């Protein structure tokens, strides 16, 4: 206890001695309405969920921004589904930047990749799936990250202590695997081997090319959902099973004129048989159409997974096509609409995301996600009654 007190006092003194840059507070408060369109599959599910979230950000910078402390807690309070009422420390980091390196220590979020439809290469952080089914929200990951910044590129080295389990909706929630008991998760490794992961990524931009080559070793962020049976052979529950994996990833983008070509590919060993997955495609943009300030982007990506129908993935042989509208108005209005369809089955996913600022500090976000055509043997079958519309009004400060 006294030691903690001493550290606290020490930290405070340290902060004080540089005090000239004030502590900066920003962040947002939001209320969310999440509505499901079909009758629920299970009686305990609801059709409509109200919730509120807060995510303040405290930053203290000194040495001209070469050092900083950042603290970003997050909390969501949900009307139904106690799993969705959750707290996370998104960020609690000390960062030190020098000429040829940066050291980032603490809880952070790191993004890797180029593609739009899915993020295969991105693996440092666990997905906060209960927060949003689009997989874009992540849990804070404890790490020591040393970046070596040289002429040949940036080499990021990661030591990742503390494995985080994926968050899933509870029994009152939607968008969940049937009979999932997330409290009974199983792990291939135990103790330190479960908790410690290693990773590196080399990245560099050369002329029109941006590229990254990465490697990860540790407990998989994506669990395999495993059925468990009672002695009579009846399905008792399903549980997340986290294997120990090696994953090598490559992400490349080529930007030329109005074209962007994107490719992400991974090789993952340790989650069943070694497999290859990839996402590749392009985005073509029309800017300032008829001098109206309006932009339209056409996107298409192919999504591949060598596990095919045996793998627990929505995308084995799928094509995403989408449209991006940028209004470039004072309210920064944006719309993204896409359809992802399976080349061999009837499964389709429809996605619309729109956002617009209201006044100076409010922002309205709308998301609609539908799926159709998934048959009994399809991995997406469990989403058949989960079409939903999410609206969020947030106040930013």
């Amino acid at each position, binding site marked *: 206890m006294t030691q903690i007190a001493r550290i606290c006092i020490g930290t405070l003194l340290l902060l004080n001695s540089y005090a000239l840059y004030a502590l900066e507070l920003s962040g947002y408060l939001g209320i969310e309405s999440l509505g499901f369109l079909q009758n629920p599959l299970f009686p305990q599910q609801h059709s409509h969920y109200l919730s509120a979230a807060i995510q303040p950000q405290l930053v203290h910078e000194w040495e001209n921004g070469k050092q900083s402390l950042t603290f970003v807690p997050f909390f969501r309070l949900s009307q139904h589904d106690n799993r969705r009422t959750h707290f996370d420390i998104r960020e609690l980091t000390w960062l030190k930047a020098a000429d040829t390196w940066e050291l980032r220590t603490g809880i952070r979020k790191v993004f890797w990749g180029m593609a739009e439809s899915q993020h295969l290469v991105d693996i440092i952080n666990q997905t906060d799936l209960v927060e949003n089914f689009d997989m874009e929200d992540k849990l804070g990951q404890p790490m020591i990250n040393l970046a070596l910044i040289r002429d040949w590129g940036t080499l990021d080295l990661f030591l990742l202590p503390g494995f985080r389990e994926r968050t899933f909706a509870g029994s009152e929630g939607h968008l969940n695997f049937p009979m999932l008991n997330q409290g009974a998760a199983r792990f291939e490794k135990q103790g330190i081997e479960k908790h410690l992961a290693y990773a590196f990524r080399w990245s560099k931009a050369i*002329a029109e090319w941006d590229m990254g080559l990465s490697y990860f070793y540790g407990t998989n962020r994506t669990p395999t959902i495993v059925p468990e049976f009672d002695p009579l052979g009846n399905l008792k529950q399903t549980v997340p099973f986290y294997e120990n994996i090696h994953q090598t990833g490559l992400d490349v983008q080529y930007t030329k004129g109005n074209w962007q070509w994107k490719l992400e590919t991974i090789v993952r060993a340790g989650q069943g048989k070694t497999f290859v997955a990839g996402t590749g495609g392009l985005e073509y943009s029309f800017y300032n159409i008829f001098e109206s300030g309006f932009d339209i982007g056409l996107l298409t990506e192919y999504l591949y997974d060598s596990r095919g129908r045996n793998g627990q993935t929505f995308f084995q042989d799928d094509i995403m096509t989408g449209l991006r509208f940028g209004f470039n108005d004072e309210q920064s209005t944006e719309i993204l609409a896409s359809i992802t369809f399976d080349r061999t089955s009837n499964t389709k996913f429809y996605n619309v995301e729109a956002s617009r600022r209201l006044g100076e500090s409010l922002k309205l976000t709308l998301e609609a996600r539908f799926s159709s055509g998934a048959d009994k043997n399809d991995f997406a079958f469990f989403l058949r009654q989960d079409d939903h519309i999410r609206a969020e009004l947030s106040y930013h400060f």
Partner: protein
Amino acid sequence: MLFQTFKNTSGEKMNKSTVFLFLALFSNVSYSITPEQRGLEIIQEADKRDTGFGDSKADMKMILKNRQGEESIRILEIQTLEIVDDGDKSLIIFDSPADVKGTAFLSFTHALIPDDQWLYLPAVKRVKRISSSNKSGPFLGSEYAFEDLTSFEVPKYSYKYLKDETVDGIGCFIIEATPKYEESGYTREILWIDKDRYISLKIDYYDRKNALLKTLTFKNHQQYLKRYWRASEMLMVNQQNGKSTALTWENYQFKIGLTDRDFDQNTLQRAH
């Protein structure tokens, strides 16, 4: 990149040698010079006088005003690194509106080949390479196009000296500049350049149909390091839709020791 830089410099050299050849041929005749050469010389002089600032940093406030007079405000921090044989590097950090706070825009300008641009989105911690083909589109919903805010490089335009004119008691050269880069929203720009200080006081922008689109006026110039002039106020008025965007610049600092390292993707992600 290396190849492209080489192309640029050789292009410039060719221009210069043409000028020398011309001067050599006509040196015995009375000194005569075409309006194009005069225009180029004036711009080169203006560019020369602004060379050597090294690096700079400033706070910019953008006030957008619509036809009804309603205002909305953006606050940005802008850092610039002068690159001698190429276009400048710049980093723009968004401070407000609050929902885009921490968003940052990194740009490596080039004279004739397209710029390299990256955008950092703090909510998803993602750096995205973006297309620099979007030259004529509005920047943050303002009356400034992207091409109005990227660094000025002499070879980006061809020039023609039109005449002298006195504006508010200040003698000006009036020069027509025609964009040579692709995807510009302008057929031409008319520049009013102060004869003494070699700085822009006003620019008229003509759209693709050659109709007057926007007028930019520079006010309240301050001199830094006893050499470099920067306007503290700029007003862009759209003559076609009645909207306007005013910029005010504060806390200009020069030669603060910024390097390439302050304009890389690692620094981009540190923006707050």
